[in-house]
């Protein structure tokens, strides 16, 4: 059996209002999928539900990680099984340094003491790839970080924690052109047969650096179209309206 992250007929409500309306999506390890779609379509909701955000009610459906339904698990348990979410809006935690936090997270992730030397080796490699200053490691987690710094910090965490599956929620927004290239380099360094990713973005530019195997389009809580890399280009040119019409036409028939 190939290992994959599989979302089956997922229906999600917030305060009784349906947000996701039957999402189906399969990301095998070794592949990178892009998820695009208009504002409010439900992309971030999908990411947070997969990661275990308790503020969403699961009405129906399954999320299978390597065959195991994880919807009943706490967020930390999911993380320990190899799931990672890079937040669209990373949260500030004052007084907790990145280094301290990451060491705790790494020990939690692998369920063992991680020797300082091993930890620093991982950290150093990530910092190098991300062309970052080590001084950031002793700063408090996201506190006072610029939008771009927060995003870079998410990828730093990704690289240190080495998950099996990562969902990157608009990691490109807020990054300048140089930073975008560097951060994409960080994600690409993770790519390999044991790693799968879902990259949420509005812009085809990012997909020039992190080339996806598959592109999905989400509208109004559903995946409405799946295609290859060229679908992203088409969306950039034509927007989403035509898709809406296409879907409407399909549903009418």
């Amino acid at each position, binding site marked *: 059996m190939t290992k994959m992250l599989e979302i089956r007929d997922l229906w999600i409500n917030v305060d009784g209002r349906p947000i996701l309306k039957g999402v189906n999506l399969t990301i095998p390890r070794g592949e990178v999928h892009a998820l695009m779609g208009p504002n409010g379509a439900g992309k971030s909701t999908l990411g*947070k539900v997969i*990661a*275990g*955000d*308790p*503020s969403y009610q699961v009405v129906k459906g399954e999320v299978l990680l390597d065959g195991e339904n994880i919807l009943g698990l*706490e*967020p*930390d348990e*999911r*993380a*320990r099984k190899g*799931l*990672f*979410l890079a*937040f669209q809006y*990373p*949260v*500030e*935690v*004052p*007084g*907790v340094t990145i280094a301290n*936090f990451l060491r*705790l*997270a790494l020990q*939690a*992730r692998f369920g063992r003491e991680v020797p300082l030397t091993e930890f620093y080796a991982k950290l150093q490699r990530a910092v190098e790839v991300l062309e970052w200053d080590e001084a950031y490691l002793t700063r*408090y*987690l996201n506190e006072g970080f610029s939008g771009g710094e927060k995003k870079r910090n998410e990828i730093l*965490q990704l690289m240190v*924690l080495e998950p099996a599956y990562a969902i990157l929620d608009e990691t490109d927004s807020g990054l300048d052109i140089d930073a975008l290239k560097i951060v994409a380099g960080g994600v690409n360094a993770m790519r390999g047969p044991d790693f799968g990713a879902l990259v949420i973005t509005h812009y085809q530019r990012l997909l020039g650096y992190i080339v996806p195997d598959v592109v999905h389009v989400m509208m109004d809580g559903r995946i409405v179209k799946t295609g290859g890399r060229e679908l992203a280009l088409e969306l950039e040119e034509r927007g989403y309206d035509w898709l809406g019409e296409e879907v409407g036409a399909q549903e009418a028939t």
Partner: protein
Amino acid sequence: MSETELKHISEDYQWGFADEVEPEVKLKGLTPEVVRAISEIKGEPDWLLEFRLKALETYFEKPWPRWGPDLAELERQMDDFYYYVKPPARENARSWDEVPEEIRRTYEKLGIPEAEQKVLAGVGAQYDSEMVYHSIKEELEKQGVIFKSIEDGVREHEDLFREYFAKVVPPTDNKFAALNSALFSGGSFVYVPPGVEVEVPLQAYFRVNTEGFGQFERTLIIVDEGAKVHYIEGCTAPIYTTEALHTGVIEIIVRKGAESRYTTIQNWPINMYNLVTQRALVEEGGYHMWLDGNLGSKVTMKYPSSVLRGPGARSEILSIAFAGDGQHLDTGAKLIFAAPETSGSIVSKSISKGEGRSSYRGLVKVLSRADRARVNVECDALLVNENSKTDTYPYMEIANETASVGHEATVSRLADDQIFYLTTRGIPEDEAAALIVRGFIEPVAKELPLEFAVELNRLIELEMEGSVG
């Protein structure tokens, strides 16, 4: 407190065990006879007995405070406390071998002798009313540093003692200072001669063992010109169903150009009323830091204060209060600017968990002669649960126009999005909550000596277990 409540609390509180130790003397009730008996046991000079008796009168004259936490229950029990309990041990042993085994084991469990070996310059250990151990490193003694029980301070250094005693906190200061002045027993007398720098801390450890007991230690610290010292105080007690009382008075004199620090890690069980007066008088160019960590107790009322009496004197007052179910911690700080170019800052961090309540009560007073005084006050409250409470009473009296005064207060809640963020990285919920709390107090906690910071982190982790979700 009900038995089930007690059981629940005892599970969290590691130091709630009691020793089977039969006291030599136990004095009950709040009377002049008890005061006389204490003074006689200690073989005190007449002036000190007179001082005590007068203080007792002051105590009775002063009304119970009607502001702050509810003390009605305490007021009803005042006649029932033991006000002096002498343990069956010799005073001020200089070697742990001379401390009775049962008592020694308690301090061993608390890790005191071990810390003494590794990181301290001297240790004083009080058990109920008396100091059963008091010792300082020889090389410091040779330099003229005095670190003794308050009783030995009176006996062996009467002139020096009398010159400073009760000058910073007179019995008339407040009702509980009067009570302490009448009943005081134990505590330390510290003198650091001019120019002597005590690089590693001195520590006093206060342990209560007897049920229904009131502990009244008194500490007097004199840091002479250009000298330096760091004094640490820690405290624990068994958990009983009845209330207990701890009313200390700490007086510190920081002479010209001297530097001192007083650190408290209070971890009383939650049947304790902890009503403490601590004040430092800072002379020209001197510096004093109060670092105050309050975790335990049923009620704490404590407002460390510094009087900046000489030009250029400085003080910082940093505090952490952690109030859980059934606790009301009313803590804060007082800064009095009484000379030009003085400066001070207050940083107060409080955490309220469950039904706990923490209050910040602060006074900043700039006298008219304090030209260009500078003060900054920051008080931050963190609420862990829906029903946790906090309040702030920041009083300011500024009588000099050239003074610069900054004040900032924040109240935040342990945020779900912070917890979610941290848990998505594999950190379990309880640990995530503890991490956020530790981050919140970090600006204060980073000033603690490493061993104490580690201990504080451990206590917070314990407190945060099962607190969210």
